[in-house]
């Protein structure tokens, strides 16, 4: 997600979690262009920004509103409306996240298949609770609703990589892959 070559910070660029610069304006522009400036595209646009930037800062909402608000087309958008969306859906983050997001499935089928013990071990290994990011900005820990792969639970996502049948012993090796 954040594997972007280091470029010096320029005007209009906001620093990402790694300290590397990413052009937020460009990300927002591209998302709007891809999905179109229509109300039913708001969620896909925010998802796109979230994926490319890691989270949706207030600045992104300001930029997106400017591009989406077109009174002449009868598309009226407020910043509050967009923030309302970003804060409502679990997959959209309004807070800065770490370089890697660990999403733990805490649903009942995983829970009864060893998920309860694993969840404790994950929190202990990362020294984080749900919703927290470590001070180094490496990991953000979150819970996620059922991913539907209950046959191989307990299941955990690190960024887009899914790990199945995870045991507490495997955690150190898994997390070591993410810098």
């Amino acid at each position, binding site marked *: 997600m954040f594997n972007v070559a280091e470029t010096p910070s320029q005007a209009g660029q906001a620093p990402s979690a790694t300290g590397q610069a990413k052009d937020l304006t460009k990300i927002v522009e591209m998302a709007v262009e891809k999905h179109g400036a229509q109300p039913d595209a708001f969620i896909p646009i925010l998802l796109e920004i979230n994926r490319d930037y890691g989270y949706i800062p207030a600045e992104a909402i300001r930029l997106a509103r400017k591009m989406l608000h077109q009174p002449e087309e009868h598309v009226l958008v407020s910043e509050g409306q967009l923030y309302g969306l970003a804060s409502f859906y679990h997959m959209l983050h309004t807070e800065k996240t770490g370089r890697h997001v660990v999403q733990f499935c805490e649903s*009942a089928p995983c829970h009864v298949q060893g998920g309860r013990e694993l969840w404790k071990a994950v929190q202990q290994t990362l020294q984080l609770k749900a919703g927290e990011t470590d001070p180094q900005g490496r990991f953000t820990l979150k819970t996620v609703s059922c991913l539907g792969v209950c046959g191989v639970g307990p299941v955990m996502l690190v960024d887009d990589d899914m790990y199945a049948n995870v045991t507490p012993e495997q955690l150190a090796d898994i997390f070591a892959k993410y810098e």
Partner: protein
Amino acid sequence: MAFYRSHILVSVDPECLAKGAHEVLDALNDELIAQGLIDEVQVLETSRIGDPRRLGPDILVYPENVHYANLSVDDIPYLVEEHFLKGRIVEKLRAAEKVITDEELGAPKSKEVRVVLRNCGKIDPHNIEEYIAEDGYQALAKVISEMTPEQVIEEVMKSGLRGRGGAGFPAARKWQLCRQVADNPKYLTCNADEGDPGAFMNRRVLESDPHSVVEGMIIAAYAIGASMGYIYCRAEYPIAVQNLNIAIAQAREFGFLGENIFGTDFSFDMEVRMGAGAFVCGEETALIASIEGKRGEPRPRPPFPAVKGVWGKPTNNNNVETYAVVPQIIMKGAEWYASMGTEKSKGTKTFAIAGDVVNTGLIEVPFGITLREVIYDVGGGIKDGKKFKAIQTGGPMGGCLVEEHLDLPVDYEALTAAGSMMGSGGLIIMDDETCMVDMARFFMEFTQEESCGKCTPCRVGTKHLLEIHEKICAGKGEPSDLEKLDELCVEITKNSLCGLGQGAPNPVISMLKHFRHEYEAHIFEKKCPAKVCRALIRFDIQAPACTGCTVCSRNCPVEAISGERRQLHVIDDEKCIRCGICVQVCNFNAIEILS
């Protein structure tokens, strides 16, 4: 066209991907290039091949029909050299003599009938021609060339098909209502926001046989007079979204979607809309709000979506499974479909079995089968020879059922009468080591988290339910808590806005009904009968079994265990944090959990 002497099918379903299928796929390609075979052997991606719970990443090689399983990247160079260069089958990596296409589903079990799942694992979901070869889109052709919309509705009505999303409203009745509304354009939505934990029936259909859903929707659109359809699929299912998009593009290319379908004046198109992680979007009014790009919050009904739905226009919303079964009802006739099931619940239903049973996974059975048959005949009984305790049906808004309910026929009415519900079809089976208070706490954690917050009874009520359960599990329960729980459940059910809020207390209601004694043990005796709640248990090292091997004391994270080598060890109860590591590491089962 390029000619390949061999084809390798790599299973890239989510389970296999989670076990490293992508790395295996890359390694195969790299190795074929390295050994100069890339022009002779083609690597293809396919859906489920074997059983990922047991086998891990697996591949199928044609024309030999050899199934290799549990592959790791390190196996690939040897495998490529032996099999593809030297032509020798690598027996040690082989899964089984005979190939079963979809081992998770397996061959239909004695009591199974595959209608919705008939094509899963049999066809390539990325290739419309394979679906057509299995009589796909014939029902659509029949409907458009031989039937009026009214006749389609009549046929589906006769079949007795009821909405598979959980409520069980007759599908054709819904279509009729929407058709009768004098307002245009009309919309069609497909609820693929399968959020119930433990339910993944729709995911398998969308991933393995997306065209059945697309065809079913086109037929429904014809019956209703809809011109545009949306499949609302949750973002947690990226492969389902991808396969649906491919299926829609192919259907458009073949003229099954778009303007003037089959040369008639019927036009219909559809799109996939992705969710962004909100359980409540499975509720139809919330789903519609989300499609329109709003917060997925439910609104009061009426007006029902049939009158005012997407963009304020008449909208028909059905579940994935409901649409998927429609083409077969048209092809094989309403009588055939109605011949399966019980008096009021016709046809078959898919269930996802999870929890403490031997065979977890998907099944499709006719309505009327008993829960006992589902658990013991199809599910293979309780894991590790333990005892059955309870089964949660209907997802987090359903209820739990116990031993005395096991001989009930599974249908909409019987489950509701027993205090649970059909729901979308997730079954979570719990053995006798499950603490029901902990399970109830767990379900409330879920509903509390997923409450959209629009109405107070649900937003505040579920939070209170959760807090009381947390208190009881922590050993701080008070006698008045039981009364408070009873009262809260009634108020939340009575006053919430949508089905999610109204159903939220259901797990608690059923657990209080069947397992009140467990609540009482937690509150009055400060004991957890299942020995799960950490605050109410302690660990004790038993004298004859302990050999004094020191493993437990070395592994204890808080140094609470002391004792000399070859002497009985002792746990300091004050220091012990009840992490349970000592129980796991002891080789002599010397550590007992007491409550």
